[in-house]
């Protein structure tokens, strides 16, 4: 048991796996500095610095996984998936299906995601919905150091391709690297419980299992990553107003823990999705489908990102799911009474 920062917790899981299993390698741009301790410990043959060639090195990671390694390809920012989507859409995710389960692709793609530090519309996207839309991929997005460590551990033991997204607002090293640059003159609205916490070495958080972060019978808030912390903060305000919220942390987008979502919503009759990804055609819609398919008819609302994320910090604050927007949407939902329990 150790108290670790979010990014360090992930690196610790990677180091544990690398020490245990010589097939685990890391490749990506600038990994010799971004993962300097891993580079110094395991050497340049297991921590490979790549050119700015996402399609080639993520594609090569797919081939390496097929060839017997268990690579972690680092994509820096998930926004850059536009440069290598084919390797995920048509290669990594398809091989198991093509071979009817015979050939698997034990690949982890590690990338940062998310906003809140004023980097603009090409560098702060979430994109987990887009990636989760590809059958054959798993997509995980932790909200705490313990989960970050546990999900990376699980991802590295999993035999299929896993997209591991690391929210920059939770990762002090990334936020320092991209946002602060040594300045004391800037500040970010960082959720303390996401940034540092207790981590158990070797402990695995299984893919596809959500966690309940807060109990309440009035309303279910489903979220992930930074959204979870915003939702908890909102729930505390709401509790004082007499609205008690379940806060569910999905942790994995795909596989989606439909059972946990449905169980909570069946109890509360109200579903509020807090999703830093784009509003339409993504996770929030899938959650709506999940509850409808379960025969529930909850009151439903979502707090998401509506369009290109603006650069200006004050506009960005309005664009990303905030405590205020979540609380407002929750109050609105609480006002109308739901059908309970779900019929059907």
């Amino acid at each position, binding site marked *: 048991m150790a108290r670790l920062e979010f990014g360090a917790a992930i690196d610790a899981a990677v180091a544990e796996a690398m020490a245990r299993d010589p097939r685990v390698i890391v490749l990506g741009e600038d990994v010799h500095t971004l993962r300097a301790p891993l580079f110094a410990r395991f050497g340049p043959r297991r921590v490979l610095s790549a050119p700015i060639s996402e399609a080639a090195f993520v594609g*090569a990671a797919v081939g*390496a996984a097929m*060839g017997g390694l268990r690579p972690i390809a680092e994509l820096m920012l998930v926004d850059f998936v536009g440069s290598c989507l084919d390797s995920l859409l048509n290669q990594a995710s398809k091989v198991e299906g093509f071979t009817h389960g*015979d*050939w698997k692709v034990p690949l982890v793609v590690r990338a940062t995601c998310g906003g809140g530090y004023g980097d603009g519309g090409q560098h702060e996207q979430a994109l987990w919905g887009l990636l989760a839309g590809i059958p054959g991929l798993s997509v995980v997005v932790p909200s705490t150091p313990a989960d970050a460590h546990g999900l990376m551990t699980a991802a590295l033991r999993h035999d299929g391709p896993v997209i591991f997204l690391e929210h920059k607002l939770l990762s002090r090293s990334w936020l320092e690297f991209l946002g602060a640059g040594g300045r004391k003159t800037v500040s970010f609205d960082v959720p303390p419980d996401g940034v540092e916490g207790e981590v158990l070495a070797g402990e695995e958080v299984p893919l596809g299992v959500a966690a309940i972060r807060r109990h309440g019978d009035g309303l279910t808030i489903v979220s992930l990553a930074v959204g979870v912390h915003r939702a908890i903060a909102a729930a505390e305000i709401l509790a004082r107003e007499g609205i008690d919220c379940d806060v569910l942390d999905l942790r994995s987008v795909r596989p989606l823990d439909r059972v946990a979502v449905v169980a909570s919503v069946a109890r509360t009759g109200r579903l509020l999705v807090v999703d830093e990804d784009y509003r339409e055609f993504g996770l929030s819609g899938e959650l709506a489908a999940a509850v409808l398919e379960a025969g529930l008819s909850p009151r439903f609302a979502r707090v998401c990102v509506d369009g290109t994320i603006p650069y200006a910090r004050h506009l960005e604050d309005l664009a990303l799911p905030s405590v205020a927007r979540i609380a407002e949407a929750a109050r609105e939902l609480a006002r109308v009474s739901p059908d309970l329990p779900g019929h059907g």
Partner: protein
Amino acid sequence: MDAAGLFRQMARARAFEDATSALWREGRISGEMHLGTGEEAVAAGVVASLRPGDAVALDHRPTPVLTVLGVDLAGMLAEMLGMESGIHRGRAGHMHLMSRTLLASSSGIVGSSAPLGAGFALAGRALRPGSVAVAFFGDGAMNQGMLLETLNLAAAWSLPLLLVCKDNGWSITTRTDAVTGGDPVARARGFGLETVDVDGGDVGAVAEAAADAIDRARNGEGPSFLRARVPRLDGHFLGDALVRAARSPAGDGRQLLGDVTSAALSRTGGGLGDRARSVVRLLDLMRRARREDRDTRHDPLERARSTVGQEVASRLEAEALAEVGRAVAAAGGAH
């Protein structure tokens, strides 16, 4: 490998392609069926230097290499027929034939064999020292970003990788040189790669060049790029519309030629020069397609036949035909 051994593999590959073609015509194979006829010397010549533990990444014409590598022929045929007895139980089809045990994959996305091959090379270096990987692709793929990036990655990481460009001059109905700057070999050299340029219809030359390059890769001396000029004997895919139109302008080509002519004569549109340039280009493409259609002068099998002698060749071809015939029967292809 001796000339007879190489010829035998070429004959096996050709017999397999011919059987595929017959099944396709019968309507028993679906989708875009790209044959590798014309590429048999490259397949046989390169694979001759491979050993267990080596890996190959293939494009949309994977069957000659897979046949030479020793993938179960009946299983491949059954796969193309979409049967449960297929090597992938009908899930993959002809653009995605793979063999985990032989470390061979294929993909229908142009250019994707290069990064996959680089990854095989990386894994091979770590897990199977002395092994190599080979990536096969076409001349058109040389314009695909992920492949270009891989030329660099292979050089930068000094991967045990042989990049084989099967240059047939075509990208579907486009003359590759009409959309390409420079020359593939110079391009590869510009990425710092060792290069070699061979006549891909000459199996001996391919075998020799590949053996050298593969040896160097095994010894940790890094990647190479091999350009092999090959003929395209059966159009882009079976039933290639341009080839059919070129073969029979008054038959299969009637619609196309009629449409083009009336469009060129349309009241509005580009200037006369522009229209003329377009029409001339289209006619030139049809002329080339017609000339190359089943052009036996450039058929690598015909060329190899003379090396091994007519008698040996005929015997090996008969054996190959028999082997493939048995595979067709086993796959349930004959009916």
